[in-house]
């Protein structure tokens, strides 16, 4: 039997039972061949990220490990609706579907059904179920599937660590490199989350370069990023904004390329080794 539970917010927030014996979510048909999580990779529409042996990771939650028994959970009370964190639908004795809830998903408007005699409903808030859940856990294969990491960080605490973010120290150290010349008062304290992620990735790439490779990378970046000022004398890039830093990071990751036919200059929005 299928059961829809909801998790109440708070540290000791318990699960409450909402609906039983209904198919809440459908199993997507594109779960085969999941992609290992990678910040640099943008999923195609028919792809999912997958974490294998999920139950052995630190961010696995208890409900996925324990035997499932719907009778153990209290029935939801009206007062609980104000503080629901996410929905968890247990289906076919195998799949757990998760949907994160936010206030924006509770609709408190007037509405009517499509029928011959539409009736207006006021003061009956509704919660919309998404077409695709935010995450799916397959108990038999022990795999967690998801599309967007940010939408499941509230469900699986700590899973946000999957993407590495450069610490303040790493960032400072990186910006002190010889080839970077900070301008316009830009410094490590102004580096935002997105660029910290890029730095975390680029540090390793850059450190692996030989001096000759570094020189050719500078030329490569120079060739593609016209907005990025490069001093030929000091061999430094002038970095004065988040945008400058982003272009430099893309350069180090060699995301710029030219199509062989048509010679169009492009930026790879997502990269994966083939």
């Amino acid at each position, binding site marked *: *039997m299928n*059961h829809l539970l909801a998790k109440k917010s708070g540290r000791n927030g318990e699960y409450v*039972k909402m609906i039983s*014996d209904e198919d809440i979510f459908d199993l997507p048909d594109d779960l085969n061949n999941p992609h290992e999580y990678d910040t640099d990779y943008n999923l195609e529409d028919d792809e999912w990220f997958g974490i294998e042996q999920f139950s052995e990771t630190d961010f696995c939650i208890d409900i996925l490990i324990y*035997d499932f*028994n719907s*009778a*153990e959970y209290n*029935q939801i009370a009206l007062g609980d609706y104000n503080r629901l964190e996410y929905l968890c639908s247990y289906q076919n*004795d195998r799949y757990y579907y998760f949907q994160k809830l936010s206030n924006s998903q509770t609709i408190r408007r007037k509405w009517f059904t499509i029928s011959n005699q539409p009736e207006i409903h006021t003061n009956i808030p509704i919660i919309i179920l998404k077409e695709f859940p935010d995450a799916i856990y397959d108990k038999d294969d022990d795999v967690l599937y998801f599309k967007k990491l940010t939408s499941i960080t509230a469900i699986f605490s700590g899973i946000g660590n999957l993407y590495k973010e450069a610490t303040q120290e790493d960032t400072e150290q990186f910006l002190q490199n010889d080839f970077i010349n900070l301008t316009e008062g830009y410094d490590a304290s102004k580096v935002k989350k997105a660029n910290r992620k890029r730095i975390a990735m680029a540090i390793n790439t850059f450190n692996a370069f030989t001096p000759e490779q570094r020189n050719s990378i500078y030329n490569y970046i120079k060739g593609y990023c016209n907005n990025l000022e490069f001093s030929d004398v000091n061999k430094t890039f002038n970095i004065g904004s988040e945008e400058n830093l982003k272009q430099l990071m893309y350069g180090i990751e060699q995301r710029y390329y030219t199509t062989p036919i048509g010679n169009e200059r492009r930026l790879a929005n997502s990269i994966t080794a083939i």
Partner: protein
Amino acid sequence: MNFLYRLLLTFNATSLIIVVFLVKEKVLINGIGLYLESIPNYVSYIFYFFVPVVLTYMSLLIARLLSKDNISKGSILSIEQANNAFLPSYLGYFFVALSVPYVETLIFIFAILFIFTFLTQTLYFNPLFLVFGYHFYYLNTTNNVQLFIITKKELKEPKSIKIDQLRRINNFTFIDIVK
């Protein structure tokens, strides 16, 4: 809906007090109509007894409409039979009914018992369920949660327990509607 149903169950569980009291006071239905005047006393008593029986049967039918649940195989750790657990409290009810002198006292005592039975939640013990072939069990799940189950099945081996059609009376009490 659920609240009304719990009221009905509570009434069913406690109403035998009234029956015992009416029998003790020799209140008869003979006075209601002319045709009833010549019938023997025990007809009245049997009639009184059948009121809770019919109500209990109705409550079993209504149970189908309650929120669904199930117990999947392997999720039960241990079983405790609870058929006889209600006997002491039930005998108590009977003695109270037999020793109550006036109708006012009965109403007052019945009201108190009703409220407490209702609030106790786990104690919807109605011996009339036994008449319909139901048994009472405490089941402990592998996650250490205790559930009170009313079912027609004879449960013995925890590992093999699998109940598909449970209905939720309250968060601790469930009834199995399958025969």
